[in-house]
């Protein structure tokens, strides 16, 4: 613990990041540039999220880290360990107990409160990037609110697939002003972006931070005749029986049998403990026994 400054980053760096966060909160959806530091992990593994978490954590905080909703995958485990070592903060897998939650590609199923902070890891913060590769031009488009191009992408989806096929990183408009990439969360999570917790987005390689203050209006872009739909697999969780949670599809064998389980492991485990069982939960229990 004494080998590191609290939460790894030096105080000047945290100050710089906090300024960027405050500016981001003041202008919801606006991408604030910041001097991203080298972190002891490769780009693409959450260097942005880790820096935002490091600048946000206090010694009294309880941290939860999830990757695609799960607490026990490589990315989540290693980042949780990182902060256990460098910050010595308490960690948890329980969504309601956490005060800071760092996430990759999911919003927890449990509704977050106004004393919690959700930190996203963002690979590409610029929603217009694949339509307009020039950063100078996309900045100008944000500044002048020229967002027609974003609808061209949705148009292409409908003309090719008959429906808006974009299923993750679905672009949103924040408070009627900035178009924002909500990071690659499934579009099922988009309606949850209007929440009571503070949401911070960190992109380390791209050196951008942006934010959504609590209760900010977030609209998913769509067409009048093709409205936005928050989709999920048409199935109930095979472990806990939940019908309203986002599901992962798991291939079981080479005969093509498959099962659907909640991607949020804490939510699923909590339901199972409360006695909710899905179609394959019994089979699973027998296997274990």
């Amino acid at each position, binding site marked *: 613990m004494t080998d590191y400054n609290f939460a790894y980053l030096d105080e000047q760096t945290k100050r710089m990041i906090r300024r960027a966060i405050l500016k981001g909160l003041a202008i919801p959806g606006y991408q604030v540039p910041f001097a991203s530091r080298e972190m002891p992990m490769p780009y693409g593994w959450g260097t942005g999220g880790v820096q935002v978490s490091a600048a946000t954590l206090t010694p009294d905080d309880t941290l939860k880290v999830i990757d695609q909703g799960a607490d026990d995958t490589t990315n989540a485990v290693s980042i949780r360990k990182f902060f256990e070592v460098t910050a010595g903060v308490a960690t948890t897998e329980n969504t309601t107990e956490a005060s800071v939650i760092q996430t990759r590609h999911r919003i927890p199923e449990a509704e977050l409160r106004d004393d919690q902070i959700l930190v996203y890891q963002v690979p590409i913060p610029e929603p217009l990037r694949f*339509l307009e590769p020039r950063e100078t031009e996309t900045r100008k488009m944000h500044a*002048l609110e*020229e967002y*027609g*191009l974003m*609808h*061209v992408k949705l*148009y*292409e989806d*409908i*003309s*090719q697939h008959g429906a808006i096929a974009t299923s993750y990183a679905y672009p949103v408009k924040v408070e009627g002003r900035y178009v924002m990439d909500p990071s690659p969360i499934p579009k099922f999570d988009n309606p949850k972006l209007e929440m009571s917790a503070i949401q911070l987005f960190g992109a380390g390689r791209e050196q951008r931070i942006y934010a959504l203050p609590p209760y900010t209006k977030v609209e998913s872009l769509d*067409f*009048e*005749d*093709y409205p936005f739909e928050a989709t999920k697999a048409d199935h109930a969780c095979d472990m806990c029986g939940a019908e309203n949670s986002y599901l992962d599809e798991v291939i079981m064998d080479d005969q093509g049998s498959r099962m659907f389980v909640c991607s949020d492991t804490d939510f699923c485990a909590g339901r199972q403990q409360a006695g909710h069982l899905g179609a394959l939960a019994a089979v699973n229990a027998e296997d274990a026994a």
Partner: protein
Amino acid sequence: MTPLLKVQNIAKFYGNRIGCRNVNFDLYPGEVMGIVGESGSGKSTLLNCLAGHLVPDDGAVLFDTRTDGLKDTVTMPEPERRMLGRTDWAFVHQHARDGLRMNISAGGNVGERLMAVGARHYGNIRSDAIDWLGRVEINETRIDDHPTAFSGGMQQRLQIARNLVTGPRLVFMDEPTGGLDVSVQARLLDLLRGLVREMGLSAVIVTHDLAVVRLLADRLMVMKDGHVVETGLTDQVLDDPQHAYTQLLVSSVLQV
């Protein structure tokens, strides 16, 4: 009648070299102005200054806006100028690739300008796109193909459709027939002439091809070394050129 475009004393310098200098003209609604000259004579520089792609070093470009009447586009705020660029103005590039999004379908290319000005109904955007593809003689079945799958002439026609879909009042064209073979050129010119007359468009056409201006332009401006050396009605200039350079230009045309 107020002119649609009033160009006053436009000058653009590249360091010590002159891009264009001392250019003045008025363009009235429904009129087509041709600008000819050899390469390096400042035609494209002038066109880019008029269309707001380059900032002129001197002079004013007054455009008759729908709300405020004549307004200098050089000094107007950028959002306003860019708004003009996607509503009342259109710019047809010499190379269709510069004016099209090559990784987006033909329908998306035509629809982009509609969506940029706020169209949010997929069905309407699509039917407008189909309508416009028809008007530039592209088969409806090609609507979901990418422009990379189109021939050069089709790409150029697609670029024109994409530009005209929002009903602009002023079209800038930079060598619209450059790089196309002659039979395709002829069809494109025919099509352009039809659209210009039918929609009552005003246009500024830059070209080095005298046949193009003979067909399309009402008035003609001849440029050399960044200066305008002769102006007048197209037929008048071409049939009775006064300036030595214009005489050279007219006599250089190959007679087949």
